[in-house]
Each structure stands twice: as structure tokens, then as C-alpha cells.
């Protein structure tokens, strides 16, 4: 589904990703971990097409197409979804309005029939159960005056409505208390199917107790420093990120 080859990217002239290689197949959950500044959020933003980030080299193939040549909105309509670390507030636009617009833009793109407000309301009601959100959220402005946990749940609600093929969750666990974390993780697990794939970007192992990854990739200084199964996350939790840095110094980065 996704093939990242020797991807180099940065912001404001500073190189942050220094050659990332990663392959994600359908039906897989990948965790990207790493210390602050290692480039994990940059990777998420580059995949989503954030305009401030500049691709300096390499390529990203998504479903056989060059992802980096597609504008962000087209990526989204083609099934790439990024859950924002800091979801943006959109005052004056209700959650229901926003979601229907996004949903219908995708349907139009795929040549499918659009849903009218009533039809969409039914769909939304159904999908909202995934993150245990009640109807009052639908008439409120997008993320406006939402708590941190509500914003993150709202991201997963959007994912539930838009049904992406590839979801990138950028530090979705940050700022969540244990109950919200459980709801969010539970929502993600419900949405995971053999036909899609999920990349979980996180600093902490905690989230991975709930969303269990098939693969763990640890970033350090813009490169994948270590890869393994879910047990790698536990090892990291026990030893800390300094351990990776030490390994780096000793053995050098694994061949990319």
C-alpha cells in the first residue's frame, strides 16, 4: 500500500528526515517511535502534505502512485488520513456540516452519490458510536471549546466517517487521560480492517498496549535506528531512548 524510499525532508531549510525507508501493507499496524526531535511528526506531516515541509529527496509510492505529487486534499480523497497532534478549531462551522462536506467531497471524487443532510445524519450517528460521542458534538463548531480528549476523539470520528485506507495517527495519545486513551484506542481498533493500514506515531509505549502494532520502527536523528515487533516498544519503555542512541554510537544506524 505504502512504500517510502530513502525519504529526505525538512522545514525552513533544515533537514529533519535523513533517509527513511518503510513499507506498509494492507492489514498492518506500524508504530513509529522515537525521542523528541527524531522526525516522527515530520514524517506524518510529509505524508499528509503539510505545505511548510519540504521534500528534499526520495519517494513515496501509495497505491502505485507518487504520493508526493498529489496535493493534500487529493491525498485525503484517495484515502490517506492524518489524525492531527493538535487538531485545529474551525469556528462557525458545525461538526456535522464539516464532516458531510468532507464525506461528500470524497464520494464525488470516487464517483459515488452524495448524501443529503438527513441521510448523512444517520451515518454520522452510527459512526459516532465508535468514539462514544453524543449528538451534542455534531452541532458544535469543529473542535471549538473541545477539551484535549474531545479533540482527539473528534479526529477518530473523522477517521470513522472518511474510512481511510491509510491512517497516520500523529501522537494521538498526547494529552489524553487514561479513559480518553481507552476510548480513542478502542475506536481505532474498531476501524482497523484487513483492507486498511495504520501508522501510529507515538513517543510513549502506553498507547501500544491498546493499539497493538505488528511492527515497531524507532527513529533517531531522522533515520530508522531500530526495527522490530511489538516487544521492541516494551524494551524501549524499559531502557529509554538513550539506549537507542547508545546503540547508534556503538553499531551505527542499521543499513537503510
Amino acid at each position, binding site marked *: 500500500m505504502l512504500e517510502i524510499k530513502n525519504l529526505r525532508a525538512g522545514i525552513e531549510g533544515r533537514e529533519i528526515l535523513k533517509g527513511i525507508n518503510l513499507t506498509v501493507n494492507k492489514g498492518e499496524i506500524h508504530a513509529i517511535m522515537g525521542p523528541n526531535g527524531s522526525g516522527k511528526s515530520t514524517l506524518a506531516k510529509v505524508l*499528509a*502534505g*503539510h*505545505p511548510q515541509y519540504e521534500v528534499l529527496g526520495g519517494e513515496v509510492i501509495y497505491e502505485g502512485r507518487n504520493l508526493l505529487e498529489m*496535493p*493534500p*486534499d487529493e491525498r*485525503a*480523497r484517495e484515502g490517506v*488520513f*492524518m489524525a*492531527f497532534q493538535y*487538531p*485545529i*478549531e*474551525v*469556528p*462557525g*462551522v*458545525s461538526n*456535522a*456540516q*464539516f464532516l458531510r*462536506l*468532507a464525506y*461528500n*467531497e*470524497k464520494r464525488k*471524487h470516487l464517483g459515488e452519490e452524495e448524501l443529503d*443532510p438527513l441521510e448523512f445524519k444517520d451515518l454520522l450517528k452510527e459512526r459516532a458510536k465508535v468514539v462514544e460521542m453524543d449528538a451534542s458534538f455534531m452541532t458544535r*463548531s469543529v473542535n471549538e471549546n473541545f477539551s484535549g480528549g474531545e479533540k482527539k476523539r473528534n479526529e477518530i470520528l*473523522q477517521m470513522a466517517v*472518511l474510512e481511510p485506507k491509510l491512517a497516520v495517527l500523529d501522537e494521538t495519545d498526547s494529552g489524553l487521560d487514561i479513559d480518553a486513551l481507552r476510548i480513542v484506542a478502542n475506536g481505532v481498533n474498531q476501524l482497523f480492517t484487513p483492507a486498511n493500514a495504520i501508522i501510529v506515531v507515538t513517543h510513549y509505549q502506553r498507547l501500544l498496549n491498546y493499539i497493538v502494532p505488528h511492527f515497531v520502527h524507532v527513529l533517531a536523528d531522522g533515520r530508522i535506528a531500530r526495527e522490530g515487533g511489538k516487544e521492541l516498544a516494551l524494551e524501549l519503555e524499559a531502557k529509554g531512548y538513550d539506549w537507542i542512541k547508545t546503540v547508534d554510537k556503538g553499531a551505527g544506524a542499521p543499513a537503510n
Partner: protein
Amino acid sequence: MVTELVKSENSYQAAFRSLRATVAWLDLVRNSAMDRFEHLGFPSVREEDWKYTNFSTLAKEEFVPVTSGSTEAREIESYPETAETHLVVVDGFLREDLSTTTGLGDVVAIDLFSAVEDARYNKIVRKYLARNAGYHNNGLTALNTAFLQSGVFLWIPKNVKLERPLQITFFAEGGANFPRLLVVAEENSSATLIESFVSSNGGKYFTNATAEIVVKDGAQLEHYRVQRESNGAYHVSSTSAELGRSSRYDTTSINLGAQLSRHDVSVVMDHEGAETAVDGLYMVGSDQHTDTHSVIDHKQPHCTSRQLYKGILDGNGRAVFNGKVFVREGAQKTDAQQTNKNLLLSDKARVDTKPQLEIYADDVKCAHGAAVGQIDPEELFYLEARGIDPELGRNLLTYGFAEEVIGKIKIDSIRSQLDEFVLRQLVSTDYADFTD
């Protein structure tokens, strides 16, 4: 100061001499107002209050005042909510034949000029007319007062609640027209009033409107003003309200039309416990200029005011917002908040905003602020990341910006009319995409 315009006989002076005489006191008021106009003339950019809004072209236009009402039949639509409570004023003259007042109940809505001669109302009119809209220092209000020949007198008797909103459509055709409105809401009454300024032609004319509003003790008035004059029009208007004890006056002014428009709104709270919300939205495109000057005057303790004005400017459109909030000595426990926010959709648009707070009491809660910004790229990216193309995204954000004012309007058809208007201004958007 005597401007070029009034040095010699002009269209206004000629028309003024042709006006029909009325009762002595009103003749006196009109004559004195004309004197003031001749003395003051049209405002000049040299005056602080008119610094950013140049009406010198208006002075040169020599519009001919409309001095008799037309009798031409025409269809002027009301909102569905006001089908039975709709007054039509054409070029400043109330047209009873085009108006529907069957839903008014005990509320009186009649020609202001005839109310002057009506024994039932002449005392009220005499007491309140030209009381809040002073013409001594304002040439434009003086001109409106000099040409007082018709207009609307709206009287909501004590304890009467008008269930349906009342709409007054001010329809303009050409020349200089002078709509005048006097509203007196007696003790513990309540009503909703909509003023709509419209035109059927795209032409040049000059609307100079004055509204005076008295909200007595315990009364409540909700007041909407929707200005959709033609693109070639000059629109100058003032709304002056005085509030009684524990009364409430909420007003929302929507300014969309006219080439050059100016609205002065003032709310004076000289009795304890009054509350007001003075909100507005202006939206201008290329070659449009709109100016709002607002005064909210807290003269007594325990009054509350809220003000939210938002502006959307496109092309080389220009806007001015000047909002003064006074908290006078002794007006303790005043609670005043004022905000002006502007969204520039183009690099050529310009706004001059000046919120002002003057406080002479020490136990008050006041805040004010102004902001001028453009579409936030982070917000836009968020929408794009959800599959919304950038153009639609910009429209959605603009719509959302306006919605903070529009969404508060309690009359459904005004709200949907404005939603539609806002979205029509925005390129290639399907209105149906946005409806809930």
C-alpha cells in the same frame, strides 16, 4: 464649515422650499435642521469622525430629494415570518397600500408625519422625535430631519408583546431619500423589528436614514438591520437608542450593499440594569467602502453591553470600524465587552479599526479588542487534509467567520438569506453543500 455645495442654491435647498407645511413645532424643527445643514454641509475628511470615509463625491452628485411619494404598484417581498407584519417605505414614504399590518394586534405602525397630527400620538412623537438623533453637529442627520415628510412611527404599548417580528422594507429608487423611523417601546413591552434596505435597480442614489429608538423600563427590543442597497448607492444611516431601567436592546446590523455606506449606531444607558448587544457584520468587495461608528454609553450602574462586529473584505474593498464605549463616573458594576474582527481575503483590501474604551468609574469589568487577519494556512491545511479542496476550504473558513454573527440571528429566513448571500460572494460554491 460651509462647503462648496451650499454656497449657492442647491438641489436640497430648492426642494426644501417646496415641502408641505406641517404643525408649527415640526416646521420649526425642520427649519432649524435645514439651517444646521446649510451651516455644516456634508462631512469632510478633515473631521476626526470622518477621517477614513470621504463623502466629497456625494456632495458633488447633486441628488434631487424625493418630495412626494410614488403611487406605482410594485411587489416587495417580505420574509415568510413577516407576511402579515410588513411595512413598505418607498423613497422614504410609507406606502400603506403595499404594507400588511394584519398581524400587528395592539401595536401601532403608522406614517410618522400623520402621527404628528394625530391627537392620540402627537405628544409621544413630539417628546421623542429628534431627541436621540441630534442634528446640531451632524450635517447628514440635519438633512434627514429637514426632509421629514413621512416615515414610520412604531409604538408598542405598555405590556404588549408582539409575537411576530415586524419588518420595515425601505425601498429606494433614485434621487435622495430620507427614511425616518421612530420606535417607542413602552414599559414591559417586547417586540422584534427588522429594517431592510433594498433597491431594485443597480443605480446611483442616496439613502439618508435616521432611526430613533426608545426602550422603556423593562421593555425588550430585538432589532435587525439588513442593508442591501444597490452597488452604486450611497447609504448613510444612524440608529440612536435610549434604554430604560432593566430594559434590553439587542441589535444586529448587516451591511452588504452600497458603494459607500456609513452607519452610526449609538446606545445610551441612562438607567440602571439595562442590557444591550450591538453586533454587526459588514462584507465588502471591490469598489465598496463601509464605515461603522458606534457609541455605547454606560451612564448608570449595573448595565451590560456586548459588542461583536465582524468584517469580511475582498478585492480592494475598504472598511472602517470605530467603536467607543464610555463608562461614565458613577456607572459602577458596568460590564462591557467589545470586539471587532476582520478577515481580509485580498492583499488590496484595507480596514481601519479603532475600538475605544473610556472609563471614569473604578468598579467595572471591561474588555475590548480588534483583530485583522487573513485565512489561516494551518486551518486551511486541516480542511485540505480532510479532502476539501483549497478554494472550498477558504470559502468554508470565510463562512465560519461570518457565522459567529449570522448564527446568533433568531429569525430563520434572515439567517438563511445571509448564509446564501455570504456563499454567493464566494467563488464557485454550491450553497447546498453548507446547509445543515
